[in-house]
């Protein structure tokens, strides 16, 4: 038995105009929550589509749970939530779910039972109202997303692939999604998500892979990735006045290599060889009121900017690659 849920080796996918994925090697450990990070057009969606066997790679191999990705037995162990969501608008909720279940090999009474369980669990079926009997287009956007989510998990897949799962989710559904991801992990399932929202990835993922322009930039466990990028960062929070003085200090490149300014909170990357204590003294001397000054590991966001930079963002062929 292999220890990887997904094992991608030297995969390349070309389109007429450009190379969408170039020589990508990627291993996703079983039972992990894995983030596929990258700007729009980096090749995330193309990679996911190859994992799902929607498109075939031009070169390289993809194995899912040790089997080739075009093995039909594999597809029934996968659950997929596409980036932009939608369902058959004129179809009744239960019939849509039954259809999706049957496509994954769950049939008859078994499918019906699971659908009932999920509808109750996500409050789509309450004593007052059974939304399962409504048509999709009679549901609110949030409810439609729940239905789609049920469709992804109905057949209890071992590998769940979520493409930009947080885009367009309201805070309540976003929390429900995070809870579910954690629960899936506890049950030993593997979850992959693609996102360009680093904050979410940092909080949820065990491991990440950053890709840009179709190539892998870095990958590994989140802790390792951060470790590797050192303790050269400072979190700084200010209270009230003295912003102008601080701004001048942060422009001093002998001390500060880069500062990410979120108005009253700064993530500062120290210049090579610079002393953080010297920076603190300068800030206090400038008269600013310091709420927090802490040595931190760089955030994924910082690492991402560092590694990919602005040049990593280019228009993808499909617009959501």
């Amino acid at each position, binding site marked *: 038995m292999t220890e990887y849920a997904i094992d991608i080796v030297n995969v390349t996918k070309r389109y007429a105009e450009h190379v969408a994925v170039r020589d990508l090697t990627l291993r996703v450990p079983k039972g992990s929550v894995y983030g596929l990070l990258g700007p729009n057009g980096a090749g995330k969606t193309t990679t996911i589509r190859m994992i*799902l066997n929607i498109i075939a790679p031009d070169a390289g191999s993809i194995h899912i749970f040790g089997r080739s990705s075009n093995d039909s037995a594999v597809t029934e162990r996968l659950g997929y939530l596409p980036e932009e969501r*939608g369902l058959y608008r004129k179809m009744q909720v239960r019939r849509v779910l039954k*259809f999706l279940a049957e496509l994954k090999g769950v049939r008859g009474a078994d499918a019906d039972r699971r659908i009932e369980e999920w509808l109750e669990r996500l409050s789509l079926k309450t004593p007052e109202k059974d939304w399962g009997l409504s048509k999709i287009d009679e549901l609110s956007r949030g409810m439609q997303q729940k239905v789609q989510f049920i469709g992804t998990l109905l057949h209890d897949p071992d590998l769940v692939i979520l493409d930009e799962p947080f885009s367009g989710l309201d805070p309540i559904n976003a929390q429900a999604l995070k809870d579910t991801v954690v629960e899936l992990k506890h049950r030993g399932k593997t979850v992959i998500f693609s996102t360009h929202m680093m904050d979410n990835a940092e909080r949820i993922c065990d491991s990440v892979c950053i890709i840009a322009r179709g190539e892998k930039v870095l990958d590994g466990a989140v802790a390792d990735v951060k470790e590797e990028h050192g303790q050269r960062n400072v979190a700084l929070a200010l209270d009230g006045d003295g912003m102008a003085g601080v701004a001048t200090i942060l422009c001093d490149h002998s001390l500060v290599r880069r500062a990410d300014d979120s108005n009253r909170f700064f993530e500062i990357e120290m210049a090579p060889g610079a002393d953080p204590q010297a920076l603190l003294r300068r800030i206090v001397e400038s008269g600013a009121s310091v709420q927090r000054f802490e040595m931190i590991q760089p955030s994924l966001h910082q690492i991402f900017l560092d590694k990919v930079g602005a040049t990593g963002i280019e228009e993808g062929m*499909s617009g959501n690659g």
Partner: protein
Amino acid sequence: MAKLWTIIKREYLERVRSKWFLIATFFGPIFFSAIIIVPAWMAARSKATSDVYNTTILDATNTGFGHRLAVNIAGDTTIPGRMPIVKLVTPDELTQAESTATHEVMRKLRTGYIVVNEQTLAGESARYAGSNATSIADMAQVKNAIRNTILASRLEKVGLDNEKMKQLTFIPLDFSTERITERGRAGSGTASVVFGFAIGFLLYLSIVIYGQTIMSGVLEEKTTRVAEVVMSSVPTDTLLAGKVLGVGAVGLTQQILWIGTTYILLKLRTPIMEKLGVPAINFSLPDITLAAGVIFLLFFLLGFIFYSSLYAAVGSSVNSESEARQAASPLMIMIVSTGVFIQPVLLNPTGTTAKVLSLVPISSPIIMPIRMAVTGVPPLELAGSLVFLAIGCIAALWLASRIYRVGLLMYGKRPTMREMARWVSYAR
């Protein structure tokens, strides 16, 4: 196979459950009965109308000829209101009487007037003036009545008694027409042309409607991204096949329901039309053998597969309904230009145009069934047409599946023809 069945089932059930399907299935037979019955009814009406009863006979013969003519026109004098009015006049008063009668017609009190005089008795001339003077059937009846009355007068002169004379001159001829084909007599000529037209129209309509249905279905799956979810579970070819077969089965269900209920309606036309207060029409339905029926459905199915797979390809390559309409215009041109030939083929079903069009897959699904309805088609031509159409279907499916599997994943701008040609060459 189980997954193909799942897709077919969804396509079929979702469409058959729709209101649109119920409405079309219910109104279809009424519509088709109407296109068959109305022309037949019009034909029946071309037997003289009741207008001829509402005439005035100006009799200047002084022999009672006018009264005899009136009886002859009425045919059955026991029915009230069928006897034309007879006015006896002298030759001198005739001009004045004609002027009065003209005014009556102008004021729509009467339909027209007949002038009979010495020349009429001699069998030389008679005159009619009226608002229905252009009605061929009415005029034929008046002319016949005058002829018969002259004949009766002459027979009377040579001493034939009244009874004998009636027996000899009463000829209630009902002239019906029937068409003969290589397979023998094939029902009324008019009815079979109407039937051929109905078949052609039905096929034409179905291909357009169900082709567009498939196109919107594919487009919906693409724009809602359901396609991606389905494609992560089944190969694209299975999805395409499931759609074409599922929607095809809907079309077939509807055709069978349409043909079945139309047949029953036509069988029951006499009581139905009597209820509607229209005189029953006597025409025989074209006799269609079971084999011919199966071949019709086969043409429908193959024609449907040919066009709907191409419509699916178009639906997969675009991003909105308005783009789809534009991109589908080459297909519409193919179908409409076939539609243009329906009438010429009906008029000359064995001509070169008809023969060529029934071999080309673009037009054969519509043209061949029409030819079969109106004339006998040699088995070799029939077989050739089916073989070419089957080859056309395979080519269309091949092309469509290649465009489909790439197109479904391409968002953004509409592809050019060159780009689509390149998609066809993609491995997958």
